[in-house]
C-alpha cells in the first residue's frame, strides 16, 4: 500500500475507533465517499480491533512455554537420537565424531556419528543442512561411505549418521602394502569414479585428502565426508570462508579455495591432483610453513610444483601420519615402497604422468581437466599405453606413441598409413552416427510437437468447458502429464521437460522451472550416459535457473562442464557452444569478476563473427552483454556502440517485440545515463518499461529491474519522491520473487538508502545501508564490488553526518577493495580518491587531502577525459580544498572548468553545477573580483535553494560562500539578508 493511502487508512481507523460503534457507519460513509475499497479496509480493521483480545501475548507466551519444555540439555547423555554412543572417535573443526550403535538394533551394527556444533545456532545453516543432507543421503555408490541417517538432537544440534568404515587412509595403505605405481593408479581411478559419481549428482566433495579416503580390508576405497564442508556454508554456493579453509588441510586446498572464491567440481579435480601427486611420489606438491600468515595463499596460488619425476629424487621431511613423529622421505624410501629402484621410478613418472598430474594442478580451474572423468580417462589411456590428453596433441606425438605401441610389427611409414585408415574409418562411423541422430531428432521433435499440440487443444472452449485456460495452466498440466503418458519414451520426456522448463523460465516462474531441468538432466544422463551433447544442453538449462536464483558457483561449474562437452561434440564456434560461453561470462561477472567476464565475452564475440541466419541472435546477445559489462568497467562509448548495434540486429532479426530488445534498451539507457545525458536516459527507460509491460506483462522480473533503473535515473535528476516510490515497489517485487536473501535485495536496500540519504534522512539511510552491507557480505564475502559500493556509500553518509575521519577511513577501505577488484587505474578508483580528498578536507587534513585530490584528478583526466563529468567533480573537490587554505589563484581555474563542464554535460539546473558556481564565486571573491563573484554566487545559490533541502550541507556551504563575499566587500547587511 502506498504511503499516502496507508496514512489515510490510519487516520480513518483512528477517528472511527474513537466513535461509538453505532456512529461509525455514518462517519465512514461521509469520510470515504465512493472509495469502497478504502471503506472495506477500515471496516475489516475495526472488526479485527474488536476481536483481537490478547492474541499476541498468548502466541508469545505459548512459544516461551514450549521453549521451556524443550530445553532438556543433558550434557552427560550418551545418546544421540536413536543411537547409543560407544566411544568418541575424534574431534574435528565442525564438532565431534562418535562411534555408536542403533539402540534398537539387535545386530549392533556400528556407525559413525558426526555432531555438528559449528554454526548450529544459525537457523539458515540448519535449514540448508537439512536440505543438503538429503542430497547426500541419496548418494549411493560402493566407494562412498553411506550417509545413513541424520537429525537434530534434543538441544537442537544437527548430526549425521554415517556408515562406519574400518580401514586405513589411502596414503599409508599404499605404502604399507607397497603398491606399485600401476596399482596406485588403478586404486586412484576408483576414487575418481566415486567423486565423478557425486559430481553427476551435483555434489562437490570440497575436502579430498588421504584422511577422507579409507581403504577397507578388501582393497576397495571408501570416501568419507562428502560435501560435509559445504553443509557448513551458511549459503550454498557462497565462497568458503577463510576460517573454513583453515579447517581444511591447506596442502590439499585449491587456489580458488584459499582465495575464498567459489568452489566447483574443478576444485575436487585439483585436490585429487594433489592426492595423486602424493601417492605417486611420496612428496607433497608444496611445502607450506603453517605459521606464517598469508603463506598458504601465496604458495598455493603462485608457486609451481616440481614435476613428480623431479620430486622423487629429493629428500624431505613430512608431517606425521596417524601419530608418530615427522617422516623422513628419501629417494630410497619412496621407491622401496613402490617396489622399484629410484631411477626406475623417476623414468616411470617422467613424461605422461608428470603431465597428467600437473594438468590437474593448474592454478586456473578452467585450464584443468574439465571433469574428474576426463582426468581418470587420461590415466586409463596412460595405463593402456595410448595417447594422453595432458600433452599437446601434435601429430608427431601421436605417431611416436602409435609406433611405440606397435613397435615390433611396423615401420614408421606403415604407421602413417594405418593411422590415416583409422581416421577415415572414424569419420565414416561418425557420419553414420549423425544420420541416425538426425532421424532420431526428427522423430523426437515430431512427438514433442504432438504432445504440445494436444496440450493446447484443451484450450479449445469445447474441451475446457468454457473456462478460459491460461498459458500457465497449460504448462502446469503439461508438466503433470509428462510422467503419466511418456513412461516408455524417455527421450521425448526429457525433451519435453526441457521445453516446459524453458517456458516457465521465460515466464519468470523459476521455482517451477528448476525441478523440470533437474529431472531432464537426470533422464538424459540415464539415456545417453555422461558424455553426450544432450546432457550438455540440460546442464546449461539447469545452470541458467541456478544462476537466476543466485547460486552462482553451482551454475558456473555446470556451465563449464556443459561447455567442455559441447566443444567436444559440436562443430567449432557452434551457436549453442557460444551461448554457453556467453553464460559462463555472465556468471563470472555476477561473482564480481568484471574483467574476467569481459575477457570471456570478448572471446565469444570474436568467435561469433562467422555466425549467420538465426544464429546471429547469439551474436546480438553477446554484444548486449558485453556492452553492459563495459558500462561496469567505465568504457561507456564502446558500450553504447555495441548496444546500439545489438538492438539494430535484434530488430532486424526478430522484430520489435522480442524480449531481448527490451533488455538491451535498458543497458543502453544506463550507458547514456553514465555519460550524463539524463533526459535521454529517462526517455529510453520509460519507453522500455512501456514496451515491457506490453510485451512481457507487469509480473515479469525484468520489469522490476527496469523500474529500478528508472528510479536510478530519476534520482540523478533529483526527482526523489517518484524515485523512492518506485524503489520501494522494486524492493517489494524482488522480495516476493526471491525471498529476503538475494543479491537483488541487497542492491535494492542500497538504492533505497541512497535515496533516503539524498533526502536528508540519515538515520533511515544508515539503517538500509547496514542491511545491504550485511546481506552482501553474507552472500558474496568481503571482496566483492557490492561490498565496495556499500562501504563507499556509507562513507558518504558518515561525511554528511559530520563524521569525516570515519568517512575517510571507510573510503580508504573502498580504495583497497576497488584496486584489488578493478585494478589500480579505474574510473571508480579515481572517484574514490576524490571522495577521500573531500572527507580529508572536511577533517582539516589539508596536505593529505591535496595529495588524494591530485591523484584522483589526474586519473580522471587520463581515464575519463578532461571534459568528463567525473573530472568536473574531482576538479571541484581539489578547488574547494585549495580555496579552504586561501590558495584562490590555483582554485579559480579548477572551479571555472568544473562549472564549464557541468553546464555543458549535465542537465540544466543540476545542483552540482550550482555548487561549482558558488565555489567559483568564492575563488573570485578571494581574488577581489567581487562583481563577477556575485553573479556566480547568485546563480549558483538559487539552484541550490531550489534543489537541496534546508540544512543540507551543500546548501549551507554555498550560503557561507555567498555571505563571505559580502563580508569582504563591506556589505554585511546583504550577507545577513541572504535566505537560508
Amino acid at each position, binding site marked *: 500500500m502506498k504511503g499516502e493511502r496507508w496514512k489515510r487508512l490510519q487516520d480513518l481507523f483512528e477517528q472511527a475507533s474513537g466513535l461509538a460503534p453505532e456512529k461509525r457507519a455514518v462517519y465512514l460513509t461521509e469520510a470515504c465517499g465512493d472509495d469502497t475499497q478504502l471503506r472495506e479496509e477500515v471496516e475489516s480493521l475495526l472488526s479485527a480491533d474488536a476481536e483481537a483480545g490478547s492474541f499476541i501475548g498468548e502466541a508469545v507466551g505459548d512459544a516461551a512455554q*514450549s521453549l521451556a519444555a524443550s530445553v532438556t540439555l543433558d550434557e552427560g547423555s550418551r545418546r544421540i537420537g536413536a543411537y547409543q554412543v560407544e566411544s568418541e572417535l575424534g574431534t574435528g573443526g565442525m564438532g565431534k565424531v562418535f562411534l555408536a550403535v542403533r539402540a534398537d538394533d539387535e545386530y549392533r551394527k556400528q556407525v559413525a556419528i558426526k555432531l555438528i556444533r559449528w554454526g548450529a545456532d544459525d537457523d539458515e545453516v540448519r*535449514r540448508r543442512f537439512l536440505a543438503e543432507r538429503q542430497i547426500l543421503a541419496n548418494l549411493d555408490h560402493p566407494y562412498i561411505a553411506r550417509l545413513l541417517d541424520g537429525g537434530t538432537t534434543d538441544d537442537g544440534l544437527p548430526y549425521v549418521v554415517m556408515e562406519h568404515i574400518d580401514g586405513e587412509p589411502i596414503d599409508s595403505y599404499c605404502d604399507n602394502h607397497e603398491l606399485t605405481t600401476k596399482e596406485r593408479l588403478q586404486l586412484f581411478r576408483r576414487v575418481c569414479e566415486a567423486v565423478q559419481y557425486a559430481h553427476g549428482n551435483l555434489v562437490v566433495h570440497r575436502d579430498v585428502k588421504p584422511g577422507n579416503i579409507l581403504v577397507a580390508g578388501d582393497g576397495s576405497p571408501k570416501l568419507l565426508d562428502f560435501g560435509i564442508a559445504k553443509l557448513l556454508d551458511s549459503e550454498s554456493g557462497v565462497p568458503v570462508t577463510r576460517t573454513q579453509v583453515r579447517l581444511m588441510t591447506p596442502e590439499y586446498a585449491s587456489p580458488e579455495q584459499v582465495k575464498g572464491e567459489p568452489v566447483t567440481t574443478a576444485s575436487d579435480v585439483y585436490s585429487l591432483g594433489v592426492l595423486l601427486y602424493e601417492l605417486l611420489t611420496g612428496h607433497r606438491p608444496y611445502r607450506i610453513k603453517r605459521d606464517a600468515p598469508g603463506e598458504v595463499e601465496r604458495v598455493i596460488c603462485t608457486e609451481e610444483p616440481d614435476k613428480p619425476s623431479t620430486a622423487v629424487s629429493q629428500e624431505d621431511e613430512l608431517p606425521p601420519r596417524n601419530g608418530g613423529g615427522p617422516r623422513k622421505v628419501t629417494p630410497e624410501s619412496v621407491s622401496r615402497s613402490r617396489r622399484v629402484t629410484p631411477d626406475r621410478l623417476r623414468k616411470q613418472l617422467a613424461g605422461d604422468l608428470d603431465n597428467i598430474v600437473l594438468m590437474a594442478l593448474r592454478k586456473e580451474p578452467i585450464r584443468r581437466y574439465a571433469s574428474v572423468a576426463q582426468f581418470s580417462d587420461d590415466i586409463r589411456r596412460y595405463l593402456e599405453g595410448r595417447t594422453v590428453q595432458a600433452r599437446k596433441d601434435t601429430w608427431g606425438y601421436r605417431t611416436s606413441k602409435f609406433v611405440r605401441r606397435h613397435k615390433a610389427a611396423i615401420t614408421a611409414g606403415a604407421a602413417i598409413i594405418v593411422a590415416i585408415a583409422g581416421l577415415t574409418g572414424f569419420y565414416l562411423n561418425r557420419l553414420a552416427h549423425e544420420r541416425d541422430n538426425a532421424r532420431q531428432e526428427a522423430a523426437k521433435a515430431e512427438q514433442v510437437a504432438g504432445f504440445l499440440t494436444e496440450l493446447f487443444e484443451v484450450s479449445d472452449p469445447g474441451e475446457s468447458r468454457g473456462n478460459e485456460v491460461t498459458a500457465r495452466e497449460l504448462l502446469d498440466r503439461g508438466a503433470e502429464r509428462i510422467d503419466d503418458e511418456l513412461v516408455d519414451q524417455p527421450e521425448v520426456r526429457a525433451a519435453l521437460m526441457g521445453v516446459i522448463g524453458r517456458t516457465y523460465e521465460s515466464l519468470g516462474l523459476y521455482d517451477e522451472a528448476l525441478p523440470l531441468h533437474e529431472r531432464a538432466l537426470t533422464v538424459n544422463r540415464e539415456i545417453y550416459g555422461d558424455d553426450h551433447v544432450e546432457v550438455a544442453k540440460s546442464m546449461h538449462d539447469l545452470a541458467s535457473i541456478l544462476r537466476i536464483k543466485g547460486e552462482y558457483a553451482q551454475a558456473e561449474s555446470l556451465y563449464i562442464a556443459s561447455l567442455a562437452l559441447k566443444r567436444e561434440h559440436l562443430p567449432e564456434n557452434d551457436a549453442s557452444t557460444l551461448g554457453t560461453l556467453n553464460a559462463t561470462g555472465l556468471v563470472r561477472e555476477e561473482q564480481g569478476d568484471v574483467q574476467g567476464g569481459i575477457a570471456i565475452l570478448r572471446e565469444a564475440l570474436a568467435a561469433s563473427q562467422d555466425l549467420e541466419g538465426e544464429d546471429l541472435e547469439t551474436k546480438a546477445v553477446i554484444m548486449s552483454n558485453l556492452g553492459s559489462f563495459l558500462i561496469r568497467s567505465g568504457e561507456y562509448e564502446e558500450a553504447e556502440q555495441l548496444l546500439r548495434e545489438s538492438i539494430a540486429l535484434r530488430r532486424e532479426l526478430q522484430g520489435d517485440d522480442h524480449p531481448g530488445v527490451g533488455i538491451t534498451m535498458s543497458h543502453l539507457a544506463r550507458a547514456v545515463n553514465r555519460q550524463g545525458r539524463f533526459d535521454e536516459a529517462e526517455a529510453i527507460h520509460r519507453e522500455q518499461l512501456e514496451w515491457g509491460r506490453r510485451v512481457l506483462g507487469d509480473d515479469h522480473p525484468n520489469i522490476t529491474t527496469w523500474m529500478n533503473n528508472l528510479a536510478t535515473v530519476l534520482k540523478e535528476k533529483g526527482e526523489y519522491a517518484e524515485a523512492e516510490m518506485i524503489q520501494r515497489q522494486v524492493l517489494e517485487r524482488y522480495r516476493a520473487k526471491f525471498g529476503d536473501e538475494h543479491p537483488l535485495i541487497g542492491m535494492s536496500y542500497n538504492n533505497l538508502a541512497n535515496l533516503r540519504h539524498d533526502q536528508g534522512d540519515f538515520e533511515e539511510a544508515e539503517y538500509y545501508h547496514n542491511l545491504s552491507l550485511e546481506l552482501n557480505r553474507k552472500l558474496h564475502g568481503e571482496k566483492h564490488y557490492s561490498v565496495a559500493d556499500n562501504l563507499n556509500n556509507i562513507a558518504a553518509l558518515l561525511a554528511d553526518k559530520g563524521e569525516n575521519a570515519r568517512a575517510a577511513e571507510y573510503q580508504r577501505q573502498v580504495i583497497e577493495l576497488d584496486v584489488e577488484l578493478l585494478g589500480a587505474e579505474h574510473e571508480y578508483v579515481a572517484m574514490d580518491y576524490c571522495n577521500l580528498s573531500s572527507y580529508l578536507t572536511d577533517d582539516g587534513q589539508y596536505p593529505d587531502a591535496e595529495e588524494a585530490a591530485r591523484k584522483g584528478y589526474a586519473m580522471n583526466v587520463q581515464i575519463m577525459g578532461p571534459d568528463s563529468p567525473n573530472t568536473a567533480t574531482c576538479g571541484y573537490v581539489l578547488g574547494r580544498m585549495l580555496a579552504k587554505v586561501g590558495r584562490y589563484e590555483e582554485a579559480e581555474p579548477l572551479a571555472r572548468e568544473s562549472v564549464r563542464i557541468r553546464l555543458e554535460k549535465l542537465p540544466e539546473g543540476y545542483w552540482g553545477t550550482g555548487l561549482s558556481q558558488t565555489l567559483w564565486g568564492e575563488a573570485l571573491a578571494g581574488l577581489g573580483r567581487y562583481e563577477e563573484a556575485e553573479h556566480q554566487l547568485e546563480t549558483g545559490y538559487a539552484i541550490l535553494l531550489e534543489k537541496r533541502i534546508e540544512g543540507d550541507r551543500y546548501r549551507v556551504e554555498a550560503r557561507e560562500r555567498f555571505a563571505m563575499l559580502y563580508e569582504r566587500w563591506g556589505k554585511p547587511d546583504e550577507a545577513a539578508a541572504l535566505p537560508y
Partner: protein
Amino acid sequence: MSEQQTVTQLLQAWRRGDREALDKLTPLVYDELRRLAERAMRGERPDHTLQPTALVHEAYVRLVEANVEWKDRVHFMATAATMMRRILVDHAKSKGRAKRGGGAAKLTLEEAVLVSSEPSEDLVLLDEALSRLADQDERKARVIELKYFGGLNYDETAEALDISASTVDRELRMAKAWLYRELQ
C-alpha cells in the same frame, strides 16, 4: 572490568552514536537472554506461564549497573526485545521442524522444504505478519515488538521511539488490529 561495567559503557557509547558499541553489545545480551531462558525453563515450574518479558528484565538487572540512566535502560530493553523475538521465533521454527520430521527420523527433502516454508507455529506466523507490517509501517511493528517481546511500558516505548505516549497507544491499537486481521 565486570560484565556489568562493560555492558553499561557500551550502552552509553551507543547512545552517543557509536554503532560499533551496538555490535559488541548485541552478542552479550543475546547470550545472556538465551542462558536465562534455558535456566528459567529448566526449573520446575510447569504450571507457571513463563513471560519472556520477565527474562528481558532479569537480563537487564544482571547485565547493567544499577545507577545507569533511564534512557540507557530503555535502549537496552528495546534491543533485548528484538533478540527475544529472534530467540522465540528460532525456537518455534525448529520445533515445527522437529514435529514434522518425527524427531530423529529421516526427513525427505520435500518435508524439509515444506517445513521451512510453512512453519506451523502461531508465533512464526505472527513473526512473519510482523515483518510484513514492518515493511508497510516500521514504527507500528516496532511498537508491538517492544511491548510483547521486551515488556516496555508506554513511557518506555515512547522514549525508545522518540514519540509521545499517546502516539504509542494509537500505533499499538491499529497494529494489533492489522496483525489480527492478517492472521485470520
